[in-house]
């Protein structure tokens, strides 16, 4: 397997023909490729067969497949090429992948919404099938036999019941003379030889020897390096800049403001000089209008925006309410945002790790005033994306700096700049109200949350009249697409709250969900997750198990086991991910996306969150925006449901939404503590307060879950008597235990309590001193 960059000379044969490519696009494609014109000058160089803009076959059998979507780690350079190669029936080992540039007939190149495979699948199936059909036609004609007497395999046409064979390479000339079929026969699934297999990503050989080229690896003769000194606040700007010391740093060329770019540009011979120059700059900042904004202010605004939430029906036997709060999240791609630009007087070439090639093209056109037709965008490999590279400001900055100084420039954000100048996953605040009847059936489900950003709220459950409303509030924090967008927050609240309802109903959280799901794909996936985790297995002391599911993009369920030590140290013991994504293209890719999304979910649940402080972003890098590491995680198990579907569903984002609620539900199962605010942080158990439902004081239960004996301790805010009543009730309000205990002069109490024989599940424990009441949940296990 080899890969081609856009700079690899592409030989265009006079015999080849391209469909759907305009004359001007064709001219640009040729002239923009270094060396191509030279090669074209030689007559009879090759007789490549190129029936469409997706695939080309050379006489030596090399198959060049064009991928028109950027690969940001989601594996499309592999999966999209697999689709074409399988339908064409070529030898995968002879496939080279070429990355397309915008223009030249390619469109809709952006990647997002988990739509690359789903959106390209039909087109690429047909593109590949065209090759196979034309090769069969060419061989049949040459042999003078019916096409139905020909068969293909691994890039070879064979005569059925005969011995004659012709390779696709041998047929390039004659196949080029065949009329392109409008509706070539596509393979049935049983005949797939590449799709549905486990294929190593096509760029792996280059990656493991250090030759794969990302944006930051592009080197153009005469290129200089540029970084920015950016305002410390959102909406801030430069008031004064003194660059005298910066310009004394060896290698610093310029340090000044450039039109259309925030902050100060530092241009240097190398990145290190640029960084040293930035440190030597003396800048007075205009901090702007947001210095009074911090995370607490924004949370209050969100709470105000949500306001009151409608009550569930008054005749509900049990009513519960919960509030969830999730933070802003940065994308923190491993490769910071960057772009190389070489802007000339009337043309430009850029190299961009981006999710939006066409967006980069228009950003560069807008920044330079150069017509799009005269701009070449080379799409490089990208060190992660997760939505961040759908924005294109990095390309605009690179182009402006290159134009300003008349030389090729590599512009990059430093890690801290990247962290602080993102379009973040929006923070959110959710109020959920739910009701249950005496049999544990849901009587009401009201969810109100902020913000009403991207992503709907696709609950898979059959619930009578659920209400989901969103409320908007004002925040200066820039937001953008972040893997699974609004699903990452809305489904967290949904899947945690359905768990709270299940426990309140005294039902098993898996069975409770299952009873709300119609027969079909989602329920099968949930069943498989429960089966794989061995849902009814007796867990060791201190362990807990959680489950969650969702129908966002594909059908996914997560089942997770955790343990929590007496010291409060959480360990993720086992992670089961189950997915039904319809037709599977690359098993390796599906597994990778499920594993990666789960680790994203766990990282943002446990550690990583953005905080706003004095109008700026507090975090600086991976030291304070921590991602989970290998020693934090067990093997992430992925189980892919076999599917009869003939089409694939999206995989890039599907693995995120149900992973974090499954984790938090497992933590609850282990500890009795509901996680309603993320991130939890390392010392989570000491930071999460005991959920006092009526808090005229504080109470702690140890251990919780309980068995027979446990201890309660706490303090009344106002104690007017030396004695209190202890009462344990089940969720239907029936008292199962009653006792009394003493309170000291400070209102404090600490006493053992006996739990009478009773079923496992949730109970309410209430202590009352005169008119002061404290209530908490206890779990019997």
């Amino acid at each position, binding site marked *: 397997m080899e890969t081609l960059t856009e700079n690899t000379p592409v030989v265009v044969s006079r015999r080849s023909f391209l469909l759907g490519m305009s004359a001007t696009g064709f001219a640009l494609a040729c002239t923009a490729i270094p060396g191509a014109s030279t090669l074209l000058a030689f007559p009879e160089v090759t007789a490549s067969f190129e029936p469409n803009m997706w695939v080309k076959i050379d006489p030596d059998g090399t198959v060049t497949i064009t991928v028109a979507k950027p690969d940001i780690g989601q594996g499309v350079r592999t999966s999209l090429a697999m689709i074409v190669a399988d339908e064409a029936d070529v030898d995968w080992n002879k496939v080279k992948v070429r990355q397309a540039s915008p223009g030249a007939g390619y469109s809709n190149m952006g990647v997002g919404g988990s739509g690359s495979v789903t959106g390209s699948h039909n087109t690429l199936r047909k593109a590949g099938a065209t090759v196979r059909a034309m090769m069969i036609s060419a061989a049949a004609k040459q042999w003078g036999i019916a096409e139905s007497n020909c068969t293909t395999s691994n890039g070879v046409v064979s005569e059925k019941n005969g011995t004659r064979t012709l390779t696709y390479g041998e047929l390039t000339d004659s196949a080029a003379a065949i009329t392109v079929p409008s509706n070539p026969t596509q393979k049935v699934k049983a005949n797939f030889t590449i799709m549905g297999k486990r294929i190593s*990503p096509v760029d792996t050989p280059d990656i493991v020897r250090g030759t794969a080229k990302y944006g930051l690896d592009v080197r153009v003769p005469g290129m200089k390096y540029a970084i920015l000194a950016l305002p410390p606040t959102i909406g801030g700007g430069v008031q004064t800049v003194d660059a005298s010391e910066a310009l004394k740093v060896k290698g610093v060329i310029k340090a000044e403001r450039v039109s259309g770019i925030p902050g100060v540009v530092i241009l240097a011979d190398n990145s290190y000089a640029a960084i040293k120059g930035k440190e030597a700059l003396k800048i007075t900042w205009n901090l702007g209008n947001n210095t009074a904004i911090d995370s607490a202010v924004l949370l209050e605004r969100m709470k105000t925006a949500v306001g009151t939430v409608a009550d569930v029906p008054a005749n509900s036997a049990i009513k519960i309410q919960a509030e969830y709060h999730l933070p802003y999240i940065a994308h923190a*791609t491993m490769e910071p945002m960057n772009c190389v630009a070489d802007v000339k007087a009337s043309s430009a070439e850029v190299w961009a790790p981006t999710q939006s090639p066409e967006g980069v093209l228009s950003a560069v056109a807008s920044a330079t005033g150069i017509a799009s037709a005269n701009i070449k965008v080379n799409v490089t490999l990208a*060190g992660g994306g997760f939505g961040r590279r759908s924005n294109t400001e990095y390309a605009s900055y690179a182009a402006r700096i290159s134009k300003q100084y008349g030389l090729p420039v590599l512009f990059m954000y430093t*890690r801290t700049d990247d962290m602080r100048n993102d379009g973040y996953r929006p923070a959110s605040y959710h109020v959920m109200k739910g009701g249950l009847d005496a049999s544990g059936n849901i009587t009401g489900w009201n969810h109100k949350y902020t913000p009403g950003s991207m992503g709907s709220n696709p609950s898979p459950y059959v619930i009578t009249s659920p209400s989901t409303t969103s409320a908007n509030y004002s925040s200066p924090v820039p937001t953008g697409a972040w893997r699974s967008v609004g699903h990452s927050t809305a489904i967290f609240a949904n899947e945690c709250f359905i768990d709270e309802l299940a426990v309140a109903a005294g039902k098993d959280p898996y069975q409770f969900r299952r009873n709300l799901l119609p027969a079909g794909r989602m329920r099968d996936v949930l069943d498989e997750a429960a089966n794989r985790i061995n849902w009814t297995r007796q867990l060791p002391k201190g362990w807990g198990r959680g489950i969650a599911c969702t129908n966002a993009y594909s059908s996914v369920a997560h089942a997770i086991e955790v343990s929590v030590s007496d010291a409060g140290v959480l360990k993720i013991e086992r992670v089961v991910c189950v997915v039904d994504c319809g037709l599977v293209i690359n098993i390796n890719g599906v597994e*990778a996306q499920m594993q990666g999304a789960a680790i994203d979910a766990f990282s943002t649940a446990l550690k990583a969150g953005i905080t706003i402080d004095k109008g700026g972003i507090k975090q600086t890098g*991976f030291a304070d925006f921590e991602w989970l590491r290998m020693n934090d995680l067990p093997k992430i198990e992925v189980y892919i449901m076999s599917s009869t579907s003939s089409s694939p569903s999206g995989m890039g984002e599907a693995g995120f939404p149900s992973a974090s609620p499954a984790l938090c539900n497992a933590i609850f199962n282990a500890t009795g503590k509901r996680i309603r605010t993320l991130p939890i942080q390392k010392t989570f158990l000491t930071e999460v307060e005991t959920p006092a439902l009526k808090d005229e004081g504080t109470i702690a239960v140890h251990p919780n879950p309980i068995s027979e004996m446990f201890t309660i301790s706490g303090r009344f805010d106002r104690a007017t008597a030396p004695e209190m009543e202890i009462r344990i009730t089940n969720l239907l309000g029936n008292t199962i235990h009653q006792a009394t205990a003493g309170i000291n002069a400070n209102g404090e109490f600490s006493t053992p309590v006996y739990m009478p024989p009773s079923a496992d599940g949730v109970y309410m424990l209430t202590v009352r001193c005169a008119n002061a009441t404290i209530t908490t949940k206890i779990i019997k296990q």
Partner: protein
Amino acid sequence: MVSLKINGVVRNIDAPDDMPLLWALRDVLNMTGTKYGCGAGDCGACTVLVNNDSARACQTPIGSLTDAEVITIEGLSTDNSHPLQKAWIEVGVPQCGYCQAGQIMSAAALLIANPKPTDADIDEAMRHNICRCGTYTNIREAIHRASVG
């Protein structure tokens, strides 16, 4: 001018002593296999071998390396014959691939010191390397595969 032995070849670098090896490799020698991830020693994307032990190139001034042997990803092998490279290809480890050079160099240091690591040994050695795409399950499998191959 600083002289460094990189991948067995002595290279003369016209840069100040305090320039981190990362930038000398990438911007002076155009050896871009070693990646910039954070510049603070937090992520491990720039990991190289210095005298057969793993080191963060972003935290290692070139002036400190005059008597050292530096091996980068490009020095592991150019034909992908190193057991770790083979294992990475067989398992299909990478997603975006950007951190993988650093991951492989940390794994190389581990296997030099401990040719048959356990899961716990691997976790301990690899915990300095972040993979933002979450390829840890594959990395662990590939290291095991390389250690028996």
